[in-house]
């Protein structure tokens, strides 16, 4: 087990290096010299030169002990992303946005997971009946409606027209009140695709012989579904769950933008419109690191739930 984890950790090194190389090329090499953008319009050549010195833009790109690429690596590994275009430290911005983002995404994530796994068990058990067909139809329809439409219509009817929820984020109100509507919309929008996926997983499991044996033994439906089927379906569920967790950090980009929630998604949208490569770079890197970590955790979890998986 320990050797396996160490080997997996070693395997992540080239991936992290690749991510850093990609972010370096995307945000440092391709856009060219951002000194003029940082210094602002109409800055004197002297100021631009100072900015260039401060950000190390006059150094060679690769192939030197003090090259920009090595500095990029060093900064990323120490989580020092420098300052954004508005001169604030990028890492401070990220720390500030983390709370509101998580306040929305964690309830949303848990809501989607519990509802879709629960319903998929029920639907898989009732396959071929009217309920099954109904759920599949609703899922496919839900997958076809664009995310933006869910948000806009939800905001319009539930908040603006009927006054059930506040329309925008207000710092004075308690957080759960502001977060309720985005969470509700997020769950509704995400349910279709997830339920559809878990239904397929459960149906695959239901076909197996051990399910028939369990029913033949006279076990109750509840016991077969939750004790036998759910446990065997754990591997695909874990895969999907751990791979969506890094997205939690990002928050829901669009939800935060619509409701004016000052989270990381909002930060990202702002950064794309102002072309703040420093912020985009930091966000890309951090989410990739999280992804790598959770991937590793997923692999370890497989062995915990499924004794057939070996570490060799």
């Amino acid at each position, binding site marked *: 087990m320990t050797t396996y984890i160490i080997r997996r950790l070693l395997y992540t090194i080239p991936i992290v290096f*690749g991510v850093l190389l990609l972010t370096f090329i*995307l945000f440092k090499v391709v856009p060219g010299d951002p000194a003029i953008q940082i210094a602002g319009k109409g800055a004197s050549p002297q100021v631009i030169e100072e900015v260039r010195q401060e950000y190390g833009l006059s150094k060679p790109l690769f192939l030197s002990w003090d090259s920009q690429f090595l500095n990029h690596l060093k900064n990323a590994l120490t989580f020092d992303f420098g300052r954004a275009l508005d001169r604030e430290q990028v890492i401070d911005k990220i720390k500030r946005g983390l709370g509101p983002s998580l306040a929305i995404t964690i309830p949303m994530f848990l809501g989607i997971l519990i509802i879709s796994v629960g319903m998929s068990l029920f639907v898989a058990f009732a396959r071929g009946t009217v309920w099954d067909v109904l759920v599949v139809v609703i899922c496919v329809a839900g997958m*076809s409606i664009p995310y933006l*439409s869910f948000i806009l*219509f939800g905001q319009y009817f539930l908040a603006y027209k009927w006054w059930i929820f506040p329309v925008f984020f207000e710092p004075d109100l308690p957080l759960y009140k502001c977060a309720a509507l985005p969470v509700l919309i997020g769950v509704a929008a995400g349910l279709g695709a997830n339920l559809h996926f878990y239904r397929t997983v459960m149906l695959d499991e239901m076909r197996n012989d051990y399910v028939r044996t369990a029913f033949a033994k006279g076990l109750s439906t509840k016991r077969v579904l939750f004790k036998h089927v759910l446990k065997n379906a754990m591997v695909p569920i874990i895969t999907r769950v751990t791979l969506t967790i*890094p997205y939690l950090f990002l928050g829901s980009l669009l939800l935060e933008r*619509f409701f004016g929630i000052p989270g990381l998604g909002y930060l990202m*949208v702002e950064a794309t419109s102002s072309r703040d*490569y420093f912020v985009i770079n930091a966000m890309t890197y951090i989410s990739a690191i999280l992804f790598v970590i959770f991937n590793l955790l997923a692999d370890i979890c497989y062995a915990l739930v499924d004794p057939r998986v070996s570490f060799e």
Partner: protein
Amino acid sequence: MNNQQNKTEMAPKGISLWQDGLRKPARRTSLWVGGLHRRKLAMASFVIIVVYFLLAGLIYVGEIFNWQWAAVKWSEQIGKQYQPPSAQHIFGTDIFGQSVFRKTLYGAKISLTVALCASFVSIAIGVPLGALAGYFRGIIDDIIVWIYSTLSSIPYILLILAFAVVLRDRTLFGHKLTGITSVYLAIGLTSWVGLCRLIRGEVIKHKERQYVLAARSYGCSNSRIIFRHLLPNVFHLVIIDFSIRFVAFIHAEVILSFLGLGEANRPSWGAMINDARIEMSRGVWWQMAAATLAIFFISLALNIFGDALRDCLDPKLRIQ
């Protein structure tokens, strides 16, 4: 329920998997499993998809030959601003008095162009790389796997956003990337990973099959084995993947246009939704509704058709 019967129904000898997938099954086995013919729903979806493509194609042709029909003349002012839907204006008018219905039709062209070009970019990268990695293995495999593991460790939407921001208004080979070009490049360059992984896995499986060994014993070159023997045998995966991914591309285009990274001067569904964001508070819902319906129908049709296509082209699923 009737697993036993399905298991015995294998493809007869002398029929390719393509023919088998499309042929009419001799007897009904179950309601949901079977050839394309029985799937009326899938056929209806296919008709919807064809209608959308025809529409986009007609707009293209109309623009080239300067035909003056409605969807090409989307910028014409047909009435006062913010007219609600009526018999004259099916989806009402927008802030400039332009017909929302015409804008919706025109949006089909932008969306389908982006999704189609993005698909071609991702197939052009993903299929050859996947085949090379699976066929040669060794160091080539390691490098390609490294590239796609790196790309896939960054959340998809973030990666698309990053590429779209970086590529926008940049000059590449003397060609300025404006509007939709940067959008489909961003989507295409980031979305080949899944396809590449799929093709690689399948090629590894096929590589030791007898037809490949036979081809090698005849002295076929590696490129001939890959392109004439292996790829035709795994190509159904490309088509299935294409039909499934197309929906995601359309939705990605909508999100990018909405964030202001898409086409600026011509109407697209994402831009219409972005306009609607402000208009909704004034009770102007028709622009939003029109764009939603347009996206909904093509996505629904593609989802249903993609599922049917997978069922009939993937023999492994059918035997179960």
